[in-house]
């Protein structure tokens, strides 16, 4: 995008595994149960049809999650942080270091099991949407420390 392409870093692969499991659990399992129910109540043919439909839906959701995962990237430039995400609606955000007010690093129980953490950047603008949903915990902390230091160094008043 700029004169020279920045060094894009992606999210942690563990997040992809997590997302795929989520697809299976959220789409696949109810689909399977539904297929069994339909097969038992209505008939084996309908049951197999529902099973196929569920399989297709699960496959589609896994593909969508994978595409979303691969397009999410960030790059640390000299004066700001670049974030890129989105499949249908593509967004590229620029957050200057001097504008960062604080950096949140959060991890739910599932994230912690997979060694992941979510990083959210806040500026004085409520509309800033700089989110990295899953980085390796070490990388997340490194990023937070680095951003906090850079933010302080270049802090500008509102």
């Amino acid at each position: 995008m700029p004169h020279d392409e920045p060094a894009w870093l992606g999210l942690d692969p563990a997040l992809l595994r997590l997302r795929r499991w989520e697809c299976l659990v959220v789409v696949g399992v109810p689909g399977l149960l539904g297929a069994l129910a339909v097969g038992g109540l209505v008939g084996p043919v309908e049951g197999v049809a529902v099973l196929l439909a569920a399989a297709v839906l699960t496959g589609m959701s896994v593909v969508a999650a994978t595409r979303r995962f691969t397009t999410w990237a960030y790059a640390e430039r000299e004066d700001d942080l670049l974030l890129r995400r989105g499949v249908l609606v593509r967004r590229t955000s620029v957050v200057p270091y001097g504008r960062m007010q604080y950096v949140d690093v959060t991890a739910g129980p599932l994230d912690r099991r997979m060694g992941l953490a979510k990083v959210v950047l806040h500026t004085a603008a409520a509309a800033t949407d700089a989110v990295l949903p899953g980085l390796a915990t070490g990388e997340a902390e490194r990023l937070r420390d680095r951003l906090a230091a850079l933010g302080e160094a270049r802090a500008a008043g509102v």
Partner: protein
Amino acid sequence: MAPESPGEDWSRLHPLSPLLRGGRLLAVVIAGLAGQGLRSPEVLGWLLGVGAPTAVLYAGVAWRTTRYRLTPTELQVRSGVLQRRDRRVPLARLQSVDVVRPLVGRVLGLAELRLEVAGGADTEAPLAYLADADAQRLRMRLLARAGAAGAGAGAAQADDDDEEAVLVTVPTGALVTSVLLSVPALLTLVVLLGVVPVGFLRPRAVPGLLATLTPLLLGTVSQGVRRLLSEYDFTVAESPDGLRLRHGLLETRAQTIPLDRVQAVRVVAPLLWRRRGWVRVEVDVAGYASGRGEQSTNTSALLPVGPEQLALALVDRVLRAPLPAADRPAPPAARWRAPLSARRLRVGLSDAHLVATSGVVTTTTDVVPLAKVQSLRLVQGPWQRRLGLASVTVDTAGRRLPRAVARHRGRDDAEALLEALTDGARRARRPKPMSAPR
């Protein structure tokens, strides 16, 4: 009554304050009960006979226990009857001080002091009520001390309002016309006119119809009346603190807009005003909580209505730099995505400001000082991708005007614009003599 030297004696609020505060509390309680339907006159008698004196007594005790004083670094207010409270407002984080005169207060010559503090969520109103002159004096002192302490509130050298140079006054006739020439007002008129043929065809249906329409009509009328009351006699003056706005009929408000706290400016030109060449200017200022618990619909109006030339001159004053011309049009492909408004989608960029215009029915011009840009974004939806378009958004810290969008630019143009904005914002942020809070 205000202390002459720092950290000296404590001062009390005006002795009539308990009357006002107790009276207000009582009015609220009565309104609440009346809303629920007072069953018997007994309750009302009991309320007035016992409740009123109690309220006034409580307020009287509160008055005796409330004291304030000004030190070189803080405004200290001690209050509380049962639960004592010691509030210290650090002057270094003071952003603005308003003097507000409620209707009854104006009759009695009282005013309330409201403070905006950096990092605070709401307006603080620690001092209610003071004598008018005392309130003004205290306000000047607070601003002077705040300026000395390094806050963004601006050091006020001037001691009276005569130092202000009045720039604009909105004539009442223009204000009334502008309220009438608005979509809600016209809709109301259309609806009322629609009742007339119904009256001819089916006269018996009219009362029922009017009853159904009454809430809607009341809503629109009350909104218009609120605007009129709030923007009555709108005056914009220049002062050492920034721009001073004064407006209001029942409750006169004096607001100060420190110029380096302006996050974004918007000029709105509704279709109904275009024949008269009128526009409205709105401004968003950091640290100005827009919800002040008042009914006013536009605490952010810099100029509620005015001729375009005047408005643009005022905007130039606020920005302290000439407004860049919005001369970069959207590419032809934008017409597929926004057939009606593509012609009006223009962008202009200077060293200090970004200008983006949009809208056909209501033409909106957004101006963002590059020094106030928080984050930036390039967004491309699926249709935009097919047409080779993209939009660039600039976020600000404003609450009413949180962003400016350059819509449907060509893809390469959008990327170049993003780069230019990022560089421009960084350069505009550079010269910082001292790091102001927030």
